[in-house]
């Protein structure tokens, strides 16, 4: 009985301490508690112990979420919500509505643009360049197609797609909105899309485009645009589609170089895994040894780290056998 009473008193005191620390006491209760503290050393000691924890782990100190990660996860959620039983063309309408009605959404777009432009400026590969290409007459292909002097391409929307023959109907904005009917195998149309995929501010548009282009990765122009997106796009979803699209061309030295860069610099572990898996058949080459050494020590993803260690072991065994 006494034991139960003591336990009950302890529980009561613990609740009082929590109430005091998290400031849920009324003024009267707090004053009464502080009077008890002055006269009860054991209670005071318990409170001081708890306060020492607050000094180390300050209330309100919570996990940090970067703007980039927030944008990425919001976009991914947006796509998942869209997939909840809506048909193709209707998918674009909510985004348009959101654009029209939400100031915050416009601010997000602006921030994506700024982040993307930083990526464009800081891109450091000779092969991958963000400049639109020119036809024989020196005209930029996108401008030649849209009959406008405005170089800014934004808000590209996929209106219709015939999956059987690749026919598409696109709507995009330059100086004015322009309709264009064409086929995805048309190189000029590809040029338009590849120029847009590296410059459009809308996450949704860029994702639609990389998904469209993944069926046309035989084209060097498309490979180049997807490589640029993989290295620079602010949206992890776009980067992931680009990585998977390029995986089939990992035998190409230029694509290999891009995938290596992704393995070293990419923050998203899923994309690093996609790049790593694409490179797996080529990692037994002697020039991969240094990279494997780095990955086996520095890589945070356990799958990549463990596989790198295993491949490195194979490298060593091969070397020993040769000696």
């Amino acid at each position, binding site marked *: 009985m006494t034991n139960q009473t003591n336990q009950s008193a302890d*529980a009561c005191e*613990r*609740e009082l*301490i*929590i*109430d005091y620390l*998290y400031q*849920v006491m009324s003024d009267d209760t707090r004053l009464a508690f502080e009077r008890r503290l002055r006269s009860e050393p054991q209670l005071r000691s318990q409170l001081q*112990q*708890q306060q*020492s*924890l607050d*000094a*180390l*782990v*300050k*209330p*309100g*100190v*919570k*996990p*940090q*979420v970067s703007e980039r*990660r*927030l944008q*990425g*996860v*919001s976009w*991914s*959620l*947006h796509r*998942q*919500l*869209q997939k*909840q*039983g*809506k048909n193709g063309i209707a998918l674009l309408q*909510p*985004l348009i*509505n*959101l654009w029209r*009605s*939400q100031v*915050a*959404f416009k601010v997000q777009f602006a921030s994506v643009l700024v982040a993307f432009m930083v990526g464009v400026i800081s891109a450091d590969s000779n092969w991958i360049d963000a400049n639109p290409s020119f036809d024989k007459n020196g005209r930029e292909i996108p401008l030649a197609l849209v009959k406008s002097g405005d170089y800014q391409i934004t808000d590209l929307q996929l209106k219709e797609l015939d999956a059987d023959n690749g026919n598409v109907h696109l709507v995009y904005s330059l100086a004015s909105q322009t309709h264009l009917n064409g086929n995805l195998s048309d190189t000029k149309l590809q040029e338009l899309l590849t120029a847009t995929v590296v410059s459009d501010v809308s996450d949704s548009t860029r994702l639609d485009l990389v998904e469209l282009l993944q069926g046309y990765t035989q084209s060097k122009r498309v490979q180049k645009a997807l490589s640029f997106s993989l290295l620079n796009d602010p949206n992890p979803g776009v980067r992931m589609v680009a990585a998977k699209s390029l995986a089939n061309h990992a035998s190409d030295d230029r694509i290999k170089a891009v995938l290596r860069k992704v393995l070293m610099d990419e923050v*998203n*572990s*899923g994309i690093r895994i996609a790049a790593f898996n694409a490179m797996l058949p080529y990692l037994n080459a002697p020039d991969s040894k240094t990279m494997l050494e780095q990955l086996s020590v520095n890589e*945070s993803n*356990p*799958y990549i780290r463990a596989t790198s260690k295993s491949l490195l072991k194979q490298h060593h065994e091969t070397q020993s056998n040769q000696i």
Partner: protein
Amino acid sequence: MYQQESELNSELINSARSGDSVAFEQLITGQRRQLLSLAAGLARDLDEAEDIYQEAMISAFNALPKFRGDSQFSTWLYRIVVNSANSYRRKFRNSVGRLFTNREVDDSQIEFGSSSGSELEAEFHTDNPENALHQSQLGRAIAGAVALLSRQEKVAFVLCHQQELKITQAAVIMECSEGTVKQTLFRAREKMRKQLSGFSR
């Protein structure tokens, strides 16, 4: 409908109930950082937190017709994030994937900071290397200590201490009495204190 729910929110909730995903996204726009931070507090790393957050938001969208307005919408969302985190852990424990992704506690990429980045920088920025090392070690130790808490203790600690929610709100989210929240929180704090005793000066 809960009295404190704004008129705009009520309209958006009604639209979202009828399947308007844009209305739902607008509803959660102001809270997504906090919800993702909550998920991060309950997850082992930020990738897992993203999964939990997305799973929770999809569940919330699908369950919206059942939202009766007995609590605030934000509290309801918090509860779904907590439930998603719990079920995610169960799924994870049961999956073979665990064998391949069994990470150490200090492999977590979660960084702790106050609500604004600049405050965090102000708090942790130091020219003293010894201090910086101490802060870095403390950060890892905190993450390790949180990981050692039981599921309920972790939820209570994350809600009340990290996210600074009121005990009453935490009780609604955890679907228990306020007394239970306080007892669980005290136990969590005791474990944390013992784990971090080496850092007390």
